[in-house]
């Protein structure tokens, strides 16, 4: 009898074949090069063309970066130092550093306040982003908006405390009465919060802001990348819950709620953001009583939040639609009520599906905060286009300034994107 299986149908293996390394031509750098760069003649040509293009680009940009001047005080001084060589004039960044980050009116002696707010922001968002951290940290997250408001705007500490008190009392009223009927709790909570705010507003003595511990800084003095970050963080964190509410409202069985949500979403989505911002800066004043002065920052926040909430609502609606109907039925059949079913079963899954879409909207929103420069707010782009490029010292330094702005935005947006990918992997439990 032969060893070959083909000679006979009956076959029994004689033992285990020991593993051996692959042949030399099938491993290592050579194999990688051949597989990925030179697998065929057209691919080889494309590789060479690509290498040439990369070389040409680097040949121009590397000296520009390498010869960059960091220490002059004007473009002309910069050109003298370069003396005809190719080189960037990064000194505009060092000289106008504070203007780029904080705008040109924020008092320089108070820069530590937004800096501290930024550090605390990282602490506050950590338990939201990384849910393995202790849940008790969420208490600080809840307090953070009021702390940050007080740090950045300053003024009397009574304002954020009364605002916080209003939320606490409203929440407590909702907890107590919401058990009986949701509507009673909801409107009762809002009414209680409004009463607290009205009473508290009367309690603050006249001129309390002038001799406060932190000197007040008006909204129009905010600027630079700080303004972009503030708008981005505020609007993303407000528009996510609003978007969830709109998406659920659009699915509601109650026609009034459903149609209100549909009309809101379709209207806001059908209007350009710039239009909404102009409404915020110019026209919104007509809708308020003549003596009411609603802060421009607040008006812009409202508009951007509405805009992105409409988009997020549609993204989440897609996630809700992707869930099998059986999940709703299983939740119902176990006796979970609507809020429980949504919070424990439906939304965790729908939001997980929606992560890429939500992150897409968040990244877009963050970049769209630069649009406030057209309604004469001096955010990062507004600073560059306005005070810096218009100055006699730095007229004409486009690449360095706009490249720096692009880099700042890229770092933040790439970070958000990486976080979302980590989150998707972390939440992958379906093992498909």
């Amino acid at each position: 009898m032969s060893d070959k299986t083909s000679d006979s149908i009956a076959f029994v293996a004689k033992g285990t074949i020991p593993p051996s390394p692959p042949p030399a031509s099938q491993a290592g750098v050579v194999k990688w090069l051949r597989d990925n760069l030179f697998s065929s003649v057209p691919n080889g040509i494309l590789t060479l063309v690509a290498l040439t293009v990369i070389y040409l680009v680097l040949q121009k940009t590397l000296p520009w970066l390498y010869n960059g001047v960091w220490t002059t005080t004007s473009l002309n001084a910069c050109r003298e130092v370069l003396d005809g060589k190719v080189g960037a004039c990064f000194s505009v960044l060092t000289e106008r550093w504070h203007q780029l980050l904080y705008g040109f009116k924020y008092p320089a002696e108070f820069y530590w306040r937004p800096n501290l707010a930024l550090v605390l922001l990282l602490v506050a968002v950590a338990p939201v982003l990384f849910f393995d951290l202790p849940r008790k940290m969420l208490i600080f997250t809840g307090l953070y908006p009021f702390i940050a408001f007080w740090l950045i705007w300053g003024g009397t500490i009574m304002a954020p405390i009364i605002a916080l008190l209003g939320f606490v009392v409203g929440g407590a009223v909702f907890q107590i009465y919401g058990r009986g009927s949701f509507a009673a709790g909801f409107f009762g909570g809002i009414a209680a919060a409004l009463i607290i705010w009205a009473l508290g507003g009367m309690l603050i003595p006249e001129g309390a802001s002038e001799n406060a511990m932190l000197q007040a800084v008006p909204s129009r003095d905010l600027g630079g990348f700080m303004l972009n970050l503030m708008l981005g963080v505020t609007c993303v964190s407000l528009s996510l819950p609003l978007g969830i509410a709109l998406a659920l409202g659009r699915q509601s069985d109650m026609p009034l709620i459903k149609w209100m949500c549909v009309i809101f979403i379709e209207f806001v989505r059908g209007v350009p953001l710039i239009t909404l911002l102009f409404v915020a800066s110019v026209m919104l004043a007509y809708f308020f009583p003549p003596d009411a002065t609603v802060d421009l920052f607040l008006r812009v926040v409202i508009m951007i939040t509405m805009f992105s909430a409409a988009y997020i609502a549609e993204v989440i609606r897609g996630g809700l639609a992707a869930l099998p109907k059986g999940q709703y039925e299983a939740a119902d059949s176990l006796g979970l009520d609507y809020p429980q079913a949504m919070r424990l079963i439906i939304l965790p899954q729908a939001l997980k599906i929606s992560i890429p879409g939500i992150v897409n909207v968040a990244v877009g929103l963050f970049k769209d905060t630069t649009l406030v420069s057209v309604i004469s707010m001096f955010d990062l782009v507004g600073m560059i286009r306005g005070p810096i490029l218009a100055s006699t010292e730095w007229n004409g330094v486009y690449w360095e300034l706009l490249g720096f702005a692009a880099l700042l935005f890229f770092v933040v947006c790439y970070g958000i994107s990486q976080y979302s990918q980590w989150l998707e992997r972390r939440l992958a439990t379906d093992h498909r």
Partner: protein
Amino acid sequence: MTGTSQMKVSDEVAITIDGMNKWYGSFHVLRDINLTVYQGERIVICGPSGSGKSTLIRCINALEEHQQGSITVDGTLLSSDLKNIDKIRSEVGMCFQHFNLFPHLTILENCTLAPIWVRKTPKKEAEERAMHFLEKVKIPDQANKFPGQLSGGQQQRVAIARSLCMMPRIMLFDEPTSALDPEMIKEVLDTMIELAEEGMTMLCVTHEMGFARQVANRVIFMDAGQIVEQNEPEAFFNNPQSERTQLFLSQILGH
């Protein structure tokens, strides 16, 4: 035949369905359904697809609403009042054809979720009870896995355990074995038989006629939204009265 089907059933009524009608739009899916289920009774509902058998048991825990007639479960009249609906749902367990486990939660969390949030059971107690029922369906070692890591048969047994954790007085099964491989049908049926022997009131939509013969007190045959025939399994299988039943039985038992 076997001992189980002869077991004495109590006189206590579990479910009463009286003159119930249901329409999908203008399509009359359930027609004049009258049914009384006694505590501890095990009823198998069979019939061709589209005959309304799933719709019928889904009406009992208000997953579908009926338009006419009344359904009373454990003395609670099923109305549009959400409190009554929630009360009935927490007393009636249900298993679905596609299991409908919650894929983002572990097996243990699937089982403890409803007791903790609906019954307000302390977490520790809920977990102990969940482990008890997971042992009963013979998969305590999978407690910390996710549903996606289990086979179909295991998932369906988890679904049964999940329902049992709510301590239901009645269990509804909607074709629990139809989505399973032949090898896994037995493990699920064994679990259901064990449940039946403990005296659980069960309504089961299934095509497993062996199960019906062994376990049911009563077999109901439905066609075109109507209850066509009901009888004890012995009489139902050996001596069907209506022509439609005879045809159905000859089709499914004929091979």
